[in-house]
């Protein structure tokens, strides 16, 4: 598996030691050499002192899922030495700080000791600098071992530390220390190394949360309220960062953002803004959805547009706040008591966090309901090499069915009926709404979570209650025609084996399907982008005898949704479930498929 432009490096460090910046510089440099890389930050729910890891997979072929089997381990944390050592593949390399030399209990790997602490102590006097620059020393050693383009590295360091020229020089000194040591003491380069490539040219490297925040700016959001929670926090922060630059006119802000007192208030503010005609959103993670559920039911029943980004993490309860999962599917699909059902979007990468993030506001206003964008920690917080963001300047926001004063005056003439807030005039189950302050005598109504008739009047009449509920359910059929269609990859037109996946598992599934094809198993794949399911998803299930459903949760939540909402027979839906909190690997997906289709081969492997 490993070779030139095809290997995995893992950095094992202590969190809070400044390693994150050095590791990012390393990954970004390779990306700028045109090589596709994926960087997975595996960090503790802690600020300082605990083990943290950063895995960088280098793949000129563009396989960007996480891959197990570490080729080069940079072991900088004695706390995790033992486990880190085990992860190295036979024939791999271990780089460690040999200031305190050590005998490693493996003879099938090559140990490259660098007296990093000693070198830093000789170079810098300030203890903080001695600690900080250790990280750039190992990056320096890797430049020699992997033949990294020094010009590209220097440019990356300069960009990262823009405006801090002194720091750039000091960092490059540290790089030189490590590089010189490696050149003098090791055989450089290693047989696995990098070389300039074309595959990543034109792409961008960004986290899904920054992309989602930017999507909200482009989607026209003007009201944002949020409450800090990992791993969603960086999304509203990304919104604010970009809005500060892009949405200020004559010194005044064309947006508003409030850090709320809790998630209940955050969604309340967003709903209040949506009710009053502003594009409004909040962002949270699992526990936040639990807290927001009451309000989501109100927005569903009172039909108020609002956008919610859920950056999923490991549950249940507080679970694993710094690990990834896709385990809020059921929760979000049916959030709140009573009969509720919500529109969900499933971005697979930061590019889609941007585009779906923006589209969500159109959908929310068109459908007058909460739209939830279900990303996760892997997409949200890790740097992905992805397609650049694109925007059509001809695009005008779809503000949905909102009546202005003229619209209210002319309503009866045009539609043939008096306006009623919850009256389905067009047959698409979407009524017309009005905003406060529109007309002196027309269009006022009382928004409520209590049962109401078509004219927004309170009711305890069961017939009316059921009629309104039925109409809101029909709105879901309209939603199914508006949400994005799945991405279907056909490898065998008459094939009977299908695979359904969504979200962050996309790179692992694509890679696994390539491997399976080499194994002689051609699998057609369908990436779901939204709930409710569009007809293409149902047709895909119908066209295949066996459909694997790949997801990162224990209870096969998407599979259950397919059975309940699309009436797909459970017998043909084979769950392929991973829920250990780590990003999905191709090996897992391939293994899950082979276990069912070729049990003998799977067992032998």
């Amino acid at each position: 598996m490993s070779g030139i432009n095809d290997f995995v490096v893992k950095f094992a460090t202590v969190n809070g030691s400044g390693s994150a910046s050095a590791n990012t510089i390393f990954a970004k440099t390779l990306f700028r050499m045109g090589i596709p890389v994926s960087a997975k930050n595996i960090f503790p729910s802690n600020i300082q002192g605990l083990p943290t890891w950063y895995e960088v997979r280098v793949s000129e072929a563009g396989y960007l899922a996480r891959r197990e089997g570490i080729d080069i381990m940079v072991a900088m944390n004695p706390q995790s030495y033992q486990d880190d050592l085990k992860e190295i593949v036979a024939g791999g390399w271990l780089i460690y700080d040999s200031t305190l030399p050590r005998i490693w209990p493996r003879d099938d790997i090559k140990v490259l000791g660098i007296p990093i602490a000693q070198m830093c102590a000789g170079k810098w006097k300030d203890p903080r600098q001695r600690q900080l620059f250790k990280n750039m020393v190992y990056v320096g050693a890797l430049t020699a071992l992997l033949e990294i383009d020094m010009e590209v590295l220097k440019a990356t360091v300069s960009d990262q530390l823009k405006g801090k020229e002194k720091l750039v020089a000091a960092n490059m000194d540290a790089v030189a220390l490590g590089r010189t040591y490696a050149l003098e003491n090791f055989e450089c380069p290693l047989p696995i190394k990098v070389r300039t490539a074309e595959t990543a040219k034109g792409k961008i490297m960004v986290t899904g949360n920054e992309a989602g925040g930017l999507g909200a700016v482009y989607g026209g959001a003007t009201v944002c309220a949020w409450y800090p929670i990992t791993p969603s926090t960086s999304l509203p922060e990304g919104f604010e960062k970009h809005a500060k630059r892009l949405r200020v006119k004559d010194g005044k802000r064309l947006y508003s953002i409030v850090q709320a007192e809790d998630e209940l208030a955050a969604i309340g503010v967003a709903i209040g803004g949506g009710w009053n005609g502003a594009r409004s959103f909040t962002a949270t993670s699992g526990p936040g959805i639990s807290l927001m559920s009451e309000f989501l039911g109100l927005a569903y029943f009172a039909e108020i547009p609002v956008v919610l980004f859920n950056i999923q993490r490991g549950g249940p309860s507080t679970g694993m706040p710094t690990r990834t999962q896709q385990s809020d599917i059921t929760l979000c699909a049916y959030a709140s008591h009573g009969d509720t059902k919500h529109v969900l979007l499933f971005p697979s990468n930061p590019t889609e966090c941007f585009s779906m993030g923006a589209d969500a506001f159109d959908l929310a206003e068109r459908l007058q309901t909460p739209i939830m964008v279900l990303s996760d920690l892997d997409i949200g917080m890790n740097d992905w090499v992805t397609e650049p963001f694109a925007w059509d300047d001809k695009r005008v926001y779809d503000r949905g069915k909102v009546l202005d004063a003229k619209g209210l005056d002319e309503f009866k003439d045009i539609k043939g009926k008096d306006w009623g807030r919850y009256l389905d005039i067009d047959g698409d189950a979407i009524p017309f709404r009005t905003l406060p302050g529109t007309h002196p005598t027309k269009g006022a109504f009382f928004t409520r979570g209590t049962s109401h008739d078509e004219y927004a009047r309170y009711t305890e009449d069961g017939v009316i209650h059921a009629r309104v509920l039925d109409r809101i359910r029909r709105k879901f059929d309209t939603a199914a025609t508006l949400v994005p269609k799945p991405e279907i990859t056909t490898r065998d037109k008459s094939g009977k084996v299908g695979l359904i996946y969504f979200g962050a598992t996309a790179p692992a599934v694509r890679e696994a399907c390539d491997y399976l094809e080499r194994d002689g198993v051609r699998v057609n794949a369908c990436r779901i982008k939204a709930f409710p399911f569009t007809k293409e998803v149902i047709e895909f299930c119908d066209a295949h005898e066996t459909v694997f459903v790949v997801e990162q949760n224990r209870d096969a939540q998407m599979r259950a949704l397919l059975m309940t909402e699309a009436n797909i027979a459970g017998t043909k839906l084979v769950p392929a479930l991973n829920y250990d909190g780590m990003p999905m690997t191709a090996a897992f997906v391939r293994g899950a498929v082979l276990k069912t289709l070729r049990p003998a081969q799977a067992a032998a492997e």
Partner: protein
Amino acid sequence: MSYIQKPVAHHPALPRNALGLTRRDYEGSMSTLCAGCGHDSITAAIIEACFEMDLPAHRIAKVSGIGCSSKAPTYFLSRSHGFNSVHGRMPSITTGANMANKDLVYIGVSGDGDTASIGLGQFCHAVRRRLNMTYIVMNNGCYGLTKGQFSATNDKASPSKKGEVNPFEGIDLCQMAIQLGAGFVARSFSGDKNQLIPLIKAAISYKGFAFIDVISPCVTFNNHPTSTKSYDYIRAHNMASENPLDFVESKDEITVDYAAGTSASIPMHDGSHLVLHKLGEGHDPRNSSDALMAIRKGAAKGSVVTGLLYVNEEQQDLHDILDTDARPLNTLQTPDLCPGSKALDGINARLR
């Protein structure tokens, strides 16, 4: 069915305000609260205040939570949009609505359960955010809709109708509001419309967070002889004379001659004035420590100090703090909101 439309017919000679509207135009549907409920008097005071202020009803948004009090917005201002949200969450809904459009008048109606228990956090943070709104608590010391349980504002010395002892101290929302930095804090009594109407007008005119705690007896569950929130108790213990207030609307000229040193006039942002009297004898409502002391001294005597308790003459509201555009954010369209592809190219370039 607990929704009753009021007949629209009314006497042709009803007085009209500057907008040509009658009081009836500011009413809502028929109240379904118990006969004699204090909340209905507050509803009437809100109607009267808005009518007399010539407010265009459609420029008002009325917002509430859950409970008897929160049903009240149905009974006034039928030409205004209303939002009966979820229990204790009126402040967050109003925050979002206000962020979206700062040009409307926001009247929030809540109860003692809605504000002092389930919504205490949201109440505190709405104050902290200096939300430009009028926040009225219809305070009866009990949960009416669930049949009379104690609320958190019920006094410790006030047992239930069945004689059950209230084991916990009551929360004084006015003291809290002052401590949290509300710019306008008043207490009143549903049975004193001469005091309540000018207070509501002044609160609406105030730019910033205006809070009015209105003692509003629950005739069904908390109006017995041992209750400290009954009509009789409040009538006997109301220190309404503490701070008499005149609210002078912008169209009126200040003609009354006030003795120097005994009164103060505070201009509101809409051109109206608050005239405070008896500063020497009562407390100076411009001083928050004085205000807190007056409330506590009164409470120690078993009295309820009503009137304007505190006013901060210079308060920024949320939009001042957030530094938002002069236009309401909900009026901005695609060209203002979308930075376009060229800006995006620049962002893409920085991410390469």
